[in-house]
């Protein structure tokens, strides 16, 4: 799928300071029966967002109108567990374009990069300062510059460089995806297959 281009994002944030949030929490398995990629945002963090009887749980951050924005500020080890890409679709479909944490699970990181959701790793102390700041002043913005790989907390001016695989960076900046790339090198793949058979 051609993806949205990601260049610069300046936005307020939604804080979710829990550690080890796994993909079963992000999108519970019972919502995986769909056969398209759209609409998962409605069930993002379903079991935290709604009570058993289906009412909105007012304690949960997504139901708190003080917090909104395109950046999810998560806790350590975000996205662990199941490889379901539906977790990333749900976060993206809800409207987030970047997730910040001090540590991401591997598959989640890959899935995010493949779907135009930018995972940004920042130092743990900066992450906890940012969580505090957002809770005190929900209007606080962050500024993400993908080309220059910088993440800035606007009110304090604190800025850090984040890393991203150069290939994935090109893809995100250009809104391209991996399949476009693979289809373009099909001859090489075929010659690999032929050589392998001869060995």
């Amino acid at each position, binding site marked *: 799928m051609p993806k949205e281009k990601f260049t610069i994002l300046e936005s307020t944030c939604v804080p979710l300071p829990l550690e080890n949030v796994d993909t079963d929490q992000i999108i519970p*398995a019972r919502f995986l029966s769909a056969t398209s990629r759209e609409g998962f945002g409605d069930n993002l963090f379903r*079991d935290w967002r709604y009570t058993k009887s289906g009412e909105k749980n007012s304690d949960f951050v997504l139901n708190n109108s003080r917090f909104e924005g395109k950046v999810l500020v998560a806790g350590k080890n975000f996205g662990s567990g199941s490889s379901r890409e539906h977790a990333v679709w749900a976060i993206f479909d809800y409207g987030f374009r970047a997730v910040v944490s001090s540590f991401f699970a591997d598959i989640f990181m890959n899935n995010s990069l493949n779907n135009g959701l930018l995972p940004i790793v920042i130092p743990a102390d900066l992450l906890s300062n940012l969580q505090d700041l957002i809770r005190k002043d929900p209007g606080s913005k962050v500024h993400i510059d993908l080309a220059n790989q910088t993440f800035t907390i606007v009110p304090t001016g604190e800025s850090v460089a984040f890393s991203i695989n150069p290939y994935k960076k090109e893809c995100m900046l250009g809104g391209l995806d991996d399949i476009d790339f693979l289809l373009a090198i*099909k001859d090489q793949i075929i010659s690999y297959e032929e050589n392998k058979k001869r060995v």
Partner: protein
Amino acid sequence: MATEKNHTNLEAKTLYDKIWDSHVVRSIAGGPDVLYIDRHYIHEVTSPQAFNGLKERGISVFRPGNTLATADHNIPTRDQHLPIRDELSRNQVTRLSENCSKYGIELFGLNHSKNGIVHVIGPELGFTLPGMTIVCGDSHTSTHGAFGTIAFGIGTSEVEMVLAAQCIIQPKSKKMRISINGLPGKGVTSKDIIMYVISEITTGGATGYFVEFSGQAIRSLSMEARMTICNMSIEMGARGGVIAPDETTFNYLRKIPSIRGIDDIEAAIDKWKTLSTDEGAKFDRELVFEASDINPMITYGTNPGMGMSVDEAIPMAEKNSSEASPSFLKSLNYMGFKPGMSLLGHPVDYVFIGSCTNGRIEDFRAFAGIIKGRKKSDNVTALIVPGSKLVEEQMAAEGLIEIYTAAGFEVRQPGCSSCLAMNEDKIPQGKYAVSTSNRNFEGRQGPGSRTMLASPLTAAAAAITGRISDPREFL
């Protein structure tokens, strides 16, 4: 206790390097590698969007013969011959059949005589072979590493990539070796070994690494038990786990009636014998554990790293910290437990034996060993779910089904079942389940369910007593 060591020999290669390097089609400058994929498994839940993607691009499946499909995640475990009642599940299973027939992919679907959980049937059918690269849109693809393969879970976008071009774009992982010295004691299974390692290094302890398991304890394990180890390597954050093939592996493969693409199994085995880590090859990290430190394990929290010996008390805080964090307390609170509490004797409502972690014939034999001549506790509901039709057949052939029935258990039909509870096999709100699966996340086995992961032996002891019990007392 873990000890770390370090040694280097620049020419020597690890097993992971050998397999990876021989599958690189092209390296992208400063970026990942284009990795050729030998075997691709698909199932009903993570494939439909990938097939949609192909359709939107107007392309076909590049190498349909390298992909094998099964229906497992979202199927009922009773009355499989009847139409699936849940409309969404039925739709997914139907879509899988349609996509497979449209693109010429071999399907071991519902009611096929060799249907089963993807990570159980792949090895059974000889589709998983040493030295291969294997992927599937399911994180427990790491299971296949037990055969000396690089096997790992991928997302749906990557499923589409493999269908489109038989390759994925991946950076190489760092390398870790985990050695388990000595032999485990009575009642200690491979499930306990891996749960112990995860509890020692935490669920993020191997993130970014591909792990090779070695040492006497690993070498002594059967293929089934090795699959359990590699299966759960993902639960410590690893990209995957691998065990070098040896005579145990080769004997397992020799017993498979026919293997696609292999005419002379002995010639193939001669080639596979080179698949091991060279002496002195460098790992980015090495950990060594002693099998004698390991006891039957159980989890008390909501991630697989929150595990302890079944006879221990729940710790006061997470590893390496003196004070319990809010996440730690939230987790115990969900479980209805308190720091310092002992779990022995705690009532159990459900027992689940099955999944790609412990749904193989050996697991059902182990469970049968304890329940034979005993009765299921009245307060326990048991879900006994073979990992595949072949496992079910073997259970019948060995007389295990009679043992289960005599003890008051009902044996279900194969599938993922309660492992992720997409079907009707849900653990109700607030109920306690001892489960042989791999994940104890909040709500994993149904909204509000409370999962305690354990081996088939510990599950059997719980099924008979209705309480958390030490399986060593029943052996």
